[in-house]
């Protein structure tokens, strides 16, 4: 696209003709460059869509056949359950870590920092494999064989939660730091205890800066849970994999999983909008 059209000079307005009590008519600049770009992109999009619909290899009839089968829905259920559990546990642990990192005690601060450093440095896949093979490190804990102690689902929850918490800690810490120091002083001056100050005064205000990145993390976690398919946990992805290993209909079944991920993500995005609006109450322009 020629760059000179991007900054086309303003088209001068015609001189006023006839009775124009409010002065010369104002004509906005015409952005030919943008219009051209929009047209080109629309054309490309149409091309891509027709190919998706026309190309028989997508096998949309197979997609439709499997979309609501019980195996897929069970996988979806596990994916959703895992997402919720990991999110809740991850943020609970993350909030604790954030408080540690903001502590006045250098040891507590250091431990919080160390946790975040370690679990952010380790790829989640590697971590899952470690937990999956924990029996090699600690064969027996409290006279119970660790192999029997941890099911694949438990391994998934532990691994994903520890990973999530490291990121959640940073998100929560950022949120707490965004709250004006005077708020804490006012709460102290009123004699509110430490727990009450955090729960009632600081966190609700921190939520305004926590929710957008947390929403991002929630969506990331939803899709990220698909990694547990490597340790044979029957989430959404692994469920469709089980089917296509049998039927060799790889593409349509991956489409089934993809469509479900997109659908749930869309719902979550709408939900995030309402949560953000809730925590914006009391700020200028919101009620």
């Amino acid at each position, binding site marked *: 696209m020629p760059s000179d059209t991007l900054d086309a000079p303003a088209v001068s307005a015609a001189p006023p003709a006839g009775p124009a009590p409010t002065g010369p008519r104002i004509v906005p600049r015409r952005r030919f460059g943008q219009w051209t770009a929009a047209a080109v992109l629309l054309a490309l999009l149409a091309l891509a869509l027709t190919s998706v619909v026309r190309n028989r290899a997508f096998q949309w009839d197979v997609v439709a056949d499997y979309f609501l089968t019980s195996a897929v829905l069970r996988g979806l259920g596990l994916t959703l359950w895992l997402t919720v559990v990991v999110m809740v546990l991850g943020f609970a642990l993350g909030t604790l870590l954030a408080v540690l990192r903001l502590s006045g005690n250098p040891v507590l601060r250091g431990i919080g920092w160390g946790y975040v450093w370690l679990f952010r440095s380790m790829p989640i896949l590697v971590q899952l494999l470690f937990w999956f093979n924990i029996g090699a490190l600690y064969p027996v804990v409290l006279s119970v064989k660790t192999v029997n102690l941890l099911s694949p689902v438990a391994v998934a929850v532990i691994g994903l939660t520890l990973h999530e918490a490291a990121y959640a800690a940073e998100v929560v810490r950022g949120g707490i730091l965004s709250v*004006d120091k*005077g*708020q804490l*002083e*006012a*709460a*102290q*001056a*009123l*004699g*509110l*205890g*430490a727990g*009450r100050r955090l729960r*009632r*005064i600081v966190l*609700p*205000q921190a939520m305004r800066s926590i929710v957008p990145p947390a929403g991002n993390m929630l969506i990331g976690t939803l899709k990220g849970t698909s990694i547990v398919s490597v340790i044979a946990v029957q989430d959404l992805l692994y469920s469709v994999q089980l089917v296509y290993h049998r039927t060799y209909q790889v593409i349509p079944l991956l489409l089934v999983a993809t469509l479900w991920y997109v659908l749930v993500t869309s719902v979550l995005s709408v939900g995030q909008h309402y949560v953000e609006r809730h*925590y914006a*109450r*009391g*700020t*200028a322009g919101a*009620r």
Partner: protein
Amino acid sequence: MSAMVEIRSVHKSFGSAQVLRGIDLEVAAGEVTVVLGPSGSGKSTLLRTINHLEKVDSGWISVDGALVGYRRSGDRLYELREREILKQRTGIGFVFQNFNLFPHLTVLENLVEAPIAVQRRPRKEAEAAARRLLTRVGLTEKADAYPKQLSGGQQQRVAIARALALEPTLLLFDEPTSALDPELVGEVLDVIKDLAHQGTTMIVVTHEIGFAREVADTVVFMDGGRIVEQGPPAQVLDHPRHERTRAFLSKVL
């Protein structure tokens, strides 16, 4: 009258900066003390040490006969536990320069938060008391508004009502009108004057000389972390003995 507040040789440093260099001050019950002084003279820090928002490095402060933030045993002062300090603070109302109202809570919720959480008062009773306080500061109809929907002057009046909700024996004001548009200063000062006339013990850090002249029983002039002079307003404001006080007053008057 007995001393409501007693401050003895209080020192405080931030790093290498000495902010308070030996402060001695007594405030009698029912009296209004106005603290004047240039920026950086330590007056706000002094006020903040009185409810232990800042810890002193040496010296001590007592309010209503009790040491603030410490327990004396022999010749040592042991810092109290958080819970005990918080309890002491409920007897000392503090009004901030920037109001520091809780923006996510309505005016009424701001007022009842501490009475319910700290004093365990039933919500109904706390709310009724809060509404009476709002009437007192002339904001009866703003109970359900959020702070950001109010003018600066209204917010500061809410902040004063919030400080009063715990029924403190002492009120501390840290430059309560410095963040306000000039035309809103009067309404806040009127509320403070009203409290003064009802015999509330107060220490007010301010730049409002006129207010000091009208309301103060004692005016304290601070500079460089020390109290330069103190006395009745007629003496300190009209016949200051120290060159430093004269220089300051000639600039602000």
